[in-house]
């Protein structure tokens, strides 16, 4: 375990040294920019736009971060020959792979924590401005209190926290998937390209599954059925992780739904890591 954590902390340090956190400036610009542009809209709509933009940007940045960071780990270590130095010590390939993945997850955790803090600060600042304007319009009294309560209800809701955790889970699945691809790929560009393609296919996979299981009313040919079945079994279903959209628009998402999505994410991470290890352990270095 200590070997895994040592590799993980080292990986995190290496990634941080590559100045990956500069993207936070862009994230902050998006959050502040959207809050500014939306300021003329009715209050419910401006909170909605801010949440949509911030969580959307969190999704995009976390996906890009984990995909690029994970795709470059193995090729870079092979190129720098540090991989050989590490594996020459009493470190198994499984420990090495788990350490690398854990390092990427630590990076993802720090990045998402920073983005969440920025998002909540922007949301809180906007909320305070709207409350001040509302109190100015209504003045003190029951009407003013009711209006402020409506503003508060539209701004922050506790479901935003699991929404961020679901984005983390989805990104964690992407990282494990990229590591699996990277374990047999010879170039990081190939790994990134295939990861992006799988990411897109993962969002339309339910359509293939529906057609395969003939739930959509269409009756595909045998060849098409074979193709649809292969697509459904091989590619992940990322659409199931998209309950974040529901949370942003203020719809209640039951706790058991979060639980099932997290469990599914965990299953994907386990399988992709296992397959990645099988590929990596048989790779000639």
């Amino acid at each position, binding site marked *: 375990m200590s070997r895994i954590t040592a590799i993980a902390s080292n990986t995190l340090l290496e990634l941080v040294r590559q100045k990956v956190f500069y993207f936070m400036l862009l994230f902050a610009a998006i959050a502040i920019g959207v809050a500014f*542009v939306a300021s003329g809209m009715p209050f419910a*709509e401006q909170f909605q*736009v801010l949440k949509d933009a911030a969580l*959307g940007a969190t999704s995009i940045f976390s996906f890009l971060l984990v995909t690029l960071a994970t795709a470059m780990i193995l090729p870079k270590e092979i190129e720098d020959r540090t991989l050989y130095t590490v594996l020459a010590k009493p470190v198994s390939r499984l420990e090495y792979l788990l350490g690398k993945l854990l390092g990427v997850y630590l990076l993802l955790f720090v990045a998402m924590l920073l983005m969440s803090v920025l998002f909540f600060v922007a949301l809180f600042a906007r909320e305070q401005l709207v409350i001040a304007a509302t109190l100015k319009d209504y003045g003190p009294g029951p009407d003013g209190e009711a209006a402020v309560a409506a503003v508060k209800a539209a701004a922050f809701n506790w479901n935003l926290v699991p929404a961020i955790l679901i984005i983390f889970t989805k990104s964690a699945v992407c990282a494990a998937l990229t590591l699996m691809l990277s374990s047999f790929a010879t170039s990081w560009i190939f790994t990134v390209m295939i990861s992006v393609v799988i990411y897109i296919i993962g969002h339309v996979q339910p359509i293939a599954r529906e057609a395969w299981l003939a739930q959509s009313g269409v009756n595909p040919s045998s060849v098409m059925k074979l193709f649809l079945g292969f697509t*459904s079994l*091989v590619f992940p279903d990322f659409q199931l992780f998209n309950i974040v*959209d529901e949370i942003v*628009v203020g719809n209640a998402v039951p706790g058991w739904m979060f639980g099932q999505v997290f469990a599914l994410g965990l299953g994907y991470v386990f399988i992709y890591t296992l397959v990645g290890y099988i590929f990596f352990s048989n790779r000639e270095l």
Partner: protein
Amino acid sequence: MKARVLGIAIILVFGAVRLPFEVRLEKEQRALHYHGAKLDLGMRQRLSQMGFVAALSGFRAVVATVLHIEAYTSWQRVEWGRLKLTYDTICALEPRNMQSWDMAAWHMAYNASVAARENKEQPRLALRLKAEREYFKLGEDFLLRGIENNPDHALLFERLATIYRDKFKDHEKASRYYEEAARRPDAMQYVHRFAVYELAKVPGREREAYERLKALYEKGEEERLPTLLRSLGELEEKLDVPKARRLYSPPPQKP
């Protein structure tokens, strides 16, 4: 080679194991009205290629955010046609976002309709009124589609009832939709009363409305609001209820 075959086999077996779980989870999510967005050819025509790819890749909310800002600009420029098309796309991307349906209906039924009625470029009143009514219908259409996607919430039922009451002056439909709103768990405190107030204005249903107003009155002080008392008085007058049995007594006239 062996490792690759084993790896692919594990992925396929995992695919088969997760299949029933994912099918069930998707069904449960659909039962909660998730995944209502239709990314079809119609949507492709309305979005740019990149926008469509982004929407396909799970970034529907981001595309919708950009469109929200576009819609806001269209509103500032009073480009009603463009605003309507933009909201059509936003609502198709985020059908569970009641805010979008509500905003779209509000723009059509309250802003665009007034602009059409007061359009100085159209000298004929009949045509201006026709255009105004067409915008009412567009507002109604947004809300009906919104309700289809969000039948579990009161908000859009309440908004539709209000459009029937204030714009179409169709009190029967207004009453029916206030009633529907009142049946939802997140119903506003006033909608059950509004349903009866509107029913009281429907010709031929005065007796039914009177009985329901009486039932509300008998619930206690918290229901005896000025509008309820006034409606009750009007119906007692209309139905010629004997003075001794009347619940509402008008305040004494000041000399």
